[in-house]
């Protein structure tokens, strides 16, 4: 790891000015992706601005038909939350299959979506539920938030404070893990919401998480595994690596989507 300056602001505004004034600063949430990257010397931020001292960034609440999760809430807390489990079962399940227990104890939802790793799980839930990402400046809909590979709509220095998930009728997440890293090779998040069905796929897309309109309209007609089972994606825009060719990923998208629909119950 290269040297850096460590700062631990005690308010959101201090954090915002700290990250703004840093040469090439990074926000530090749980650090479960950032720190390994820095250890490999693949990232060399001049400053780490640790958000753990900022009050009000973690916690889960149910407000006006939404589950609101503070950005610094750990995966373990989301997976164990009675509010999440009873309102958005698919989200609790998804949080429980990120990384391993120790990673889940420190990794946070804000950190995960800000990083937008194409093989991360949380972007699937955000997009699959039509979540809203709340920052210190504004609100961004998930449909606009995930821009591309490791790219988001966040401005430099913009800080995610919470994610607001509308409560769906039902939802589920089905993940096929990359065998070594256990990141998502293909993950399908399926939700039946008041505005129709949503299907979001992680792991497979070259540009990160994406929705599958064909599956969504099929589910709007008939919310059953059979209606997505006949829909297969072209493999052109899918990732291909030693763990899964684009064809295999395309096949898994259908299988995982089917299973997630089944899992919705």
């Amino acid at each position, binding site marked *: *790891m*290269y040297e850096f300056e460590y700062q631990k602001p005690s308010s959101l505004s201090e954090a915002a000015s700290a990250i703004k004034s840093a040469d090439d600063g990074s926000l530090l949430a749980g650090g479960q992706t950032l720190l390994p990257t820095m250890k*490999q010397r693949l990232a060399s931020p001049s400053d780490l601005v640790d958000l753990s001292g900022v009050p009000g960034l973690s916690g889960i609440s149910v407000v006006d038909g939404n589950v609101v999760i503070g950005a610094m809430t750990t995966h373990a807390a989301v997976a164990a939350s009675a509010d999440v489990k009873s309102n958005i079962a698919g989200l609790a399940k998804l949080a429980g299959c990120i990384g391993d227990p120790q990673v889940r104890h420190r990794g946070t939802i804000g950190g995960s979506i800000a990083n937008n790793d194409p093989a991360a799980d949380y972007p699937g839930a955000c997009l699959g539920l039509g979540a809203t990402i709340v920052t210190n400046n504004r609100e961004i809909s998930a449909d606009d938030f995930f821009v591309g590979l490791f790219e988001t709509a966040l401005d430099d220095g913009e800080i995610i404070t919470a994610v607001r998930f509308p409560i769906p009728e039902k939802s589920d997440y089905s993940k*096929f893990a990359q*065998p*070594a*890293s256990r990141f998502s090779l293909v993950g399908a998040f399926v939700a039946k919401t008041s505005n129709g069905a949503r299907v979001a796929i992680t792991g497979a897309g070259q540009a990160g998480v994406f929705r599958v309109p064909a599956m969504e309209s099929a589910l709007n007609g008939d919310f059953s595994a059979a209606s997505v089972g006949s829909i297969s994606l072209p493999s052109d825009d899918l990732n291909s690596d*030693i*763990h*899964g*060719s684009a064809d*295999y990923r395309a*096949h*898994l998208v259908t*299988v995982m989507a089917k299973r997630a629909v089944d899992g919705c119950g």
Partner: protein
Amino acid sequence: MNATGIGAAVKRKEDFRFLTGQGTYTDDINRPGQAYAYILRSPLAHANIKNIDTTAAKAADGVLAVFIGDDMAADGVGGIPCGWGVNNKDGSAMAEPAHPALAQGKVRYVGDQVAIVIAETYTQAKDAAETISVDYEELPAVINMEAALAGGPLVHDDAPGNMSYDWGLGDLDAVNEGFKNATQVSKIDIVNNRLIPNAMEPRAGIGEYDTATGEYTLYTTTQNPHVIRLLMGAFVLNIPEHKLRIVSPDVGGGFGSKIFHYAEEAILTWAAGKIQRPIKWTAERSDAFISDAHGRDHITHAELAMDADGKFLALKVSTKANMGAYLSTFATSVPTYLYGTLLAGVYSTPAVYVEVKSVFTNTVPVDAYRGAGRPEASYLLERLVDRAARETGHSQVDLRRKNFIPNDAFPYQTPVALAYDSGDYNASLDEALKRADVVGFEARKAESERNGKRRGLGYSTYIEACGIAPSAVAGALGARAGLYESANVRVHPTGSVTVYTGSHSTGQGHETAFAQLVSDTLGVSLESVDIVHGDTNKVQFGMGTYGSRSLAVGGEALMKALNKITDKAGKIAAHCLEASEADIEFKDGQFSVAGTDKSMAFSDVALTAYVPHNFPHETLEPGLEENAFYDPANFTFPGGCHICEVEIDPDTGTVSVENFVAVDDVGRVINPMIVEGQVHGGVAQGIGQALLEGCIYDESGQLTTGSFMDYTMPRADNIPNMDVGNTVTLCAHNSLGVKGCGEVGAIGSPPAVINAIVDSLWGLGVRDIAMPATPQKIWQAIATAQTSQAAE
């Protein structure tokens, strides 16, 4: 049976320190004044080094020294030696190119050592290393063995055709005759996938030089400290044994990968002398991936000739074995004497011929990994026999039984040099069939099919040769070392015992198993016995732990020394009890005079030995300490039967190991708890090879699977509970009757797993699946088979 003696499942003596965080692994050691080293490695698979500029690094914060290959060459440091010479078919010697510790003029694989940076802290050394400017002239790399043999770029100018040797074993004429008489022939093309050992403790070392005595010390994560002292002292650094101490404390797993003399060991020791300060180096896991010797990596074509009845007539095998970029310590022996000699398996095939070409490529050196050659042999044979059974219409069990070496044939001379001393292959098969509930398989399969899954059952009836080895045999086959073991038993005045063994432990539990031998023989408690290993200044000599040899060779050396102890103690007892030696009996720690009530405890004899107030010194020396070296008469031959049952989800290609039965004959069992644990670990590595682990290089020679993010290590949810049993035939040539258990799991299991997968998919038209059988490969195999069936 003594409650802590042979056969008792006593808890391990070493566990308290490991469980409380008090183990001492090499990286836990810190020496006064210690500096830290970073090894700069080649980022390219093949390149000429035109220049190395270390000016900035030398001037960087905290840096004490930077050395490159030229510095070592200027000091006359030798290359890393290979410990086993193998001859070509025509009798000529193998090609054995130089292997400099730090690259000289050329790098030959990603990970090759280029420079050592020594600084006050590790971070300073690593930071400084980034400022070293190496002017590489990149050369085309050769990664694939076929390409290397077919005129690919030369890895070494003095290894024409990229071949180290072209070796053969067996009677080719007899084999050809067998094929002429055959009515059925089964053939197979098979790849034994390259593996990365990944012991959980990364390699580490501390080099140290004592200016007062001129002594060098190297703390290192090795399985065989004396071997390192010999190889590094005599061949690389020219330091005589009495000025070179190797200490290998607790070792966090080895599985073969810590046998070899690694360049870092020589670099650290040499550099410590140069800067006259202790220097510590600890591999990061990323270093381990590109510098620990890899394992396996064979490509093989084999053909089995059978008569109309399915009797094996002849076997012909042609293998290419990857050596990587340099010949590692025992690399040359693995695909030859530890592989070719095992190709008779448990079968009475009268004629076998094997030829092996060993190939240089621009990859990390390949050497022994758990099983070393024998897993490659068992995988080949058991896959081929499985196929032969399917092609000839025999059941898996019947074809095997028909060809087993019968019990009355032992000692059995195979057509490939080995003489098996004992075995009962039907017994292990019968026991495994029972445990695996083979009778109920069809019902389970039907249930799986009702759930849209496929189910398969796979067999492996394997043998291995271990307890490595008789020096005479090894020497005749090209080993440049003896392969005996030594033990020293020091009985202290109050009857406690310290054993100095030349074996070492990488976690197997020798401190317990060896203490059980002492407890059993001398009647002393386990607590009063300490086993010392891993330090050349304490232990007389030794060859270390590998090849499942610790008990069969090291334990036998200990028994030999213990017998000398009881002989001498008997003499002392006879003297003290005023009886004739012939009348002295020893049982449960008491010497007694036959037919009398006169007796003397072992501890009293020990005390007398050191307080010899009235010894007849012309016939009885004071003291009670004995030394023994044991060189076995033969290898030992554990064997057994593994049966694996898998369920496959055809939608994703995922394999679930539903049941794994291992019935092994490892001879007499000293501690059944430890033996079971060894089998569990071996089987998990075998399942890992079969389903998960595969080392992949890209065309340019970059290691694609260079971290745990891409190299799939078996995790708890990949591995099933295992049903481990045993049958026993005693080793006929050692006193304990022991054979060795460290490798059987890894040798027997991979073919059982793959045969089970093939069994489950055979009906779909799948004929083969390559290791590791990842979900993607299985899905692809099913898809391809379905497409081609549809086309027919």
